């Protein structure tokens, strides 16, 4: 956007502002990222690879992948269902429903984890019942998954809802009138229209699922090799003064973030839209 002459600032001022913004962001955002990689590589590649080969680190990586592999599909299906009913129909309470879907974004991660401890922990509402049947939720995989699903709950729904609202329902109605069934309509008409946004929402959901710290920290119990995800493993290494290893694992997660950002930019270009990430 080039403003007309009356609203144009002198070139030195404009460039000064741009350079200032660039400097501030570099110092504030890029430098921390650079610090992670520098610290990780300080003692050479050998230390980095050793940090990954450690059995506890391997277990943490496996657990992180497993938790994401369960949470992301759950939230994808829920997110598509929510976007479908919010975007394609009118019904009383729709605004309330939309607000409730966004709710997990405004809740502290620690509180997101805590609610499941309040339900399923040793002193939780269902704690004694679960204990008598020898079912572990908190301090085990189910708790990690529940906390992760809670935290990543809105991602897919909130990427899809504005797009599907904009697209309306004429195409789907036409398909249905021509005799297509519900699943057929969704697969052949809706899905092609939303595929890039859906992929972008899934990617963001996945990045958050793999990187979540506060919520899983509360429900994990920090059992080495068993209930530590990668972010929790980082904390343990750091607290044990194994800085090189901590930064090595952190670098892996930072790479995931960078890949997600690049993919998101590409997808935005493909779909011609941009969404806000959280």
């Amino acid at each position, binding site marked *: *956007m080039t*403003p*007309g002459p*009356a*609203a144009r600032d002198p070139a030195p001022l404009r460039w000064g*502002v741009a350079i*200032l*913004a*660039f400097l501030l962001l*570099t110092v*504030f*955002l*890029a*430098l*921390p*990222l650079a610090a*992670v990689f520098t*610290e990780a590589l300080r003692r050479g590649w050998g230390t980095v690879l050793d940090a990954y080969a450690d059995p506890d680190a391997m277990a943490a990586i496996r657990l992180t992948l497993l938790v994401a592999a369960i949470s992301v599909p*759950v939230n994808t299906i829920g997110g598509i*269902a*929510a976007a479908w*009913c*919010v975007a*394609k*129909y*009118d*019904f*009383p309470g729709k605004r309330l429903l939309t607000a*409730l879907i966004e*709710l*997990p974004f*405004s809740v*502290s*991660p*620690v*509180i997101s984890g*805590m*609610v*499941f*401890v*309040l*339900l399923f*922990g040793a002193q939780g509402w269902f704690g004694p019942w679960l204990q008598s049947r020898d079912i572990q939720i908190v301090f085990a995989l189910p708790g990690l998954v529940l906390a992760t699903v*809670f935290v990543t709950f809105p991602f897919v729904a909130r990427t899809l809802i504005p797009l599907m609202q904009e697209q309306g329902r004429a195409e789907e109605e036409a398909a*249905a*009138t021509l005799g297509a069934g519900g699943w057929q309509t969704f697969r052949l008409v809706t899905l092609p229209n939303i595929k890039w946004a859906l992929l972008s929402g899934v990617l963001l959901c996945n*990045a958050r699922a793999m*990187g979540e*710290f*506060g919520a899983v920290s*509360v429900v994990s119990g920090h059992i080495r090799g068993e209930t530590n995800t990668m*972010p929790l493993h*980082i904390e343990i290494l750091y607290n044990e003064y194994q800085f090189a290893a*901590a930064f090595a694992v*952190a670098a892996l*997660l*930072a790479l995931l*973030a960078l890949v997600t*950002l*690049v993919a998101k930019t590409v997808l935005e270009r493909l779909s011609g839209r941009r969404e806000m990430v959280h």
Partner: protein
Amino acid sequence: MTTARAHRDPLPGFGLSLGVTLAWLSLIVLVPLSALALRPWELGVSGVIRALSDARVLAALRLSFGSALLSALANLPLGLLVAWVLVRMRFPGRRLLDAMVDLPFALPTAVAGLALTALFAPNGWLGAPLKEIGVAVAYTPFGVFVAMMFVGLPFAVRTVEPVLRDLGTEAEEAAATLGAGRAQALVRVVLPALAPALLTGFGLAFARAVGEYGSVIFIAGNRPMVSEIAPLLIVQRLEAFDYAGAAAIGLAMLAVSFLALLLLGLVQAWLRPGRRG
């Protein structure tokens, strides 16, 4: 629409999708959050008040809300500056700058916390020169503020940016044509138009900062009464199996946050008519 749908909607799937949504929402979000709303009262009203008036809890709440407020405020001019550059200028590297803004959203909080600590530690790239001039960031309340600013910045940029883009430059040009100075045009034409978006960005950054845990606890040093944030106290209470006490702190945090956001919404509603008229 509603009655028409009840008779025969050509588009199937309303019942199914609403059912799935409600089940998903209730099981994952509503039932768990209701536990948070109900558990503190096991202590009785006086017990909740006692749990919250503990000196350490009060200090932690003050730190969490105080730094969140300051960091969200500090993010406004920075966010405005970055949004301005992204919307109004074309230069090589603009796309990189644009992508960089989302970094705090994408970076896992534990990684951000570790990175900021490494950067601002007394021997870090920024910590060392700052130490020379007598400023300590890591392991102080100032570090809490810095981490909160880091996670909140994208909210400030991303809420102002689209409004600034839609605003265009016509209004400024008109103001200039009518004899307004450049500063006058910016302060009296552009800034008021951006005010609601700035408030939204402030609210989002504030809400995020209040609850922030991962990126703060590494740099904070977590000294009781000094640099200990409220979410950390919740974690400690839970580890001590004081569920009701933990829930009380959590509920207080949520209540204050929602009140703050509500207040912000009211201010925005009050700003709106005067601006467009």
